[in-house]
């Protein structure tokens, strides 16, 4: 049986897709057969971040509608042969996503994958609700700003009331906080919320802090998940996240501004 992870937030542009690609790659690199599914029908970009956009033939909705088999639609990643991508449809309308259909695909995937990562669209509409409905674990991606924290809180309410686990009265979805696009300098100057501020409202188990980093954009332009860029802080932070999720104890990094005099003078930021 696979463990189903939803990467969710409520708000858009916070780093869900970046996170989904990174942790799916991290889990696969750690030796676990992993599938990552793009639930963002109409706005697919997971395949871009994973650099497989030119190999997309069939998509998630084709599989739901029985127009293609899972094996036909799954794309094997070029960097890691334990990672598979199920892309979203760019053309079909969102109504094609149904609870029954999604459930069927997840059931089938569960048979030979260890982890299934569901990249949720923004909002609290159908797509987002279906992405989380079957989840066992939730990575709540939050930026250190008030509106993002509010939306995450709202999402947590939905996780604890509208999921299959909630409906069946099973153990609740395990919820983790991922604080992303964290800029220690702007936190220090009070422009952004601190980890403490965020935790006062959300009080969740912190899986990691992902610093704001230019390497994220270069990685996504290159179609390689940032976790493979071992030199970048964001890549290291995601590696920590995966290790912690798999049970390893690692101290949290990248919380404090520690830029040297020259860095501050020239405003460079890696």
């Amino acid at each position: 049986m696979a463990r189903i992870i939803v990467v969710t937030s409520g708000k858009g542009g916070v780093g869900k897709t970046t996170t989904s690609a990174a942790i799916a790659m991290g889990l696969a690199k750690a030796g676990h057969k992993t599938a990552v599914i793009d639930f963002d029908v109409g706005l697919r970009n997971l395949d871009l971040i994973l650099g497989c956009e030119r190999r997309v033939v069939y998509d998630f909705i084709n599989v739901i509608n029985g127009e293609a088999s899972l094996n036909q639609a799954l794309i094997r990643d070029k960097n890691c042969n334990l990672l598979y991508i199920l892309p979203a449809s760019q053309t079909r309308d969102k109504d094609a996503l149904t609870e029954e259909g999604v459930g069927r695909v997840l059931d089938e995937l569960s048979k030979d994958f260890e982890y299934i990562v569901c990249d949720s669209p923004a909002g609290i509409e159908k797509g987002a609700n279906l992405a989380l409905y079957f989840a066992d674990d939730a990575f709540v991606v939050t930026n250190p700003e008030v509106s993002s924290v509010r939306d995450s809180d709202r999402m947590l309410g939905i996780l604890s009331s509208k999921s299959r686990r909630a409906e069946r009265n099973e153990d609740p979805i395990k919820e983790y906080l991922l604080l992303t696009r964290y800029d220690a300098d702007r936190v220090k100057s009070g422009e952004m919320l601190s980890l403490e501020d965020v935790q006062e409202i959300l009080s969740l188990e912190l899986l990691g802090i992902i610093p704001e980093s230019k390497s994220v954009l270069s990685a996504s332009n290159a179609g390689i998940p940032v976790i493979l860029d071992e030199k970048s802080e964001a890549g290291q932070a995601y590696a920590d996240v995966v290790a912690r999720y798999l049970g390893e104890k690692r101290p949290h990094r990248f919380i404090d501004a520690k830029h040297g005099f020259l860095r501050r003078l020239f405003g460079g930021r890696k």
Partner: protein
Amino acid sequence: MLNTSPALEFKSSTFFAPILILYTHDMVAIEQTLQEKINLAPEFFRDSPLIIDLRELNKLNQDLDFVQITQLLRRIGFFPVGIRGGNEQQNKQARTLSIPIDTVREQGNPITIGEAQKQEAVPEVTTAKESISPIAAPPQSPVAATLITQPIRSGQRIYASGDLIILSQVSAGAEIMAEGNIHVYNTLRGRALAGVHGNTAARIFCFDLQAELISIAGDYKTSEDLNKQTYKNPVQIYLQNHALIIKEIA
């Protein structure tokens, strides 16, 4: 086609609906008072079924057009699902509107919401939750307290028909309601309404008061009116001479 499963089945069950007791036939007064109640707990009243009780009104010999009241209630978002205590004319109107007629059983008087708002000569609208059941209702047993250990997040609503005890935080944008007392052994950032059926003796206790709104038996304060001194402190909140008192718990 062979089909062994039956097409349908009857089961006896209880259905909860608030009862609206009218003391006036003044439509403007009814609408205004209802709107005030709705503003206080919009989520609670949204799309709520409602039983219209005309006993008191008919005792006062005030004539009321049942079609008109039904239209008013539907317009502001209620679903009238029954009439009780209507006269012959009103029951006839109900029948044409396909609204069932409930025969009144003598039970304890429902409690009024917002005792504090009661003044002479002011029309009063009362709601109370009661069960409508085809069989005689079982004797009321005391309601157990509801215990909640998980955080109540923005957008979530909790309703307890007795006391409500919450061990975790209540987020901004969440709403907790109880017919009895409310205890929050954590931070209260959302809306808390105790004694929602008019129990003026109900109290709210919380560890860390940062609420958006607090209310007891319909009397309320919003965060704007909350005293800076009690903000972020452990407090108890109760009604005294129709005033909400917020007192720090030492």
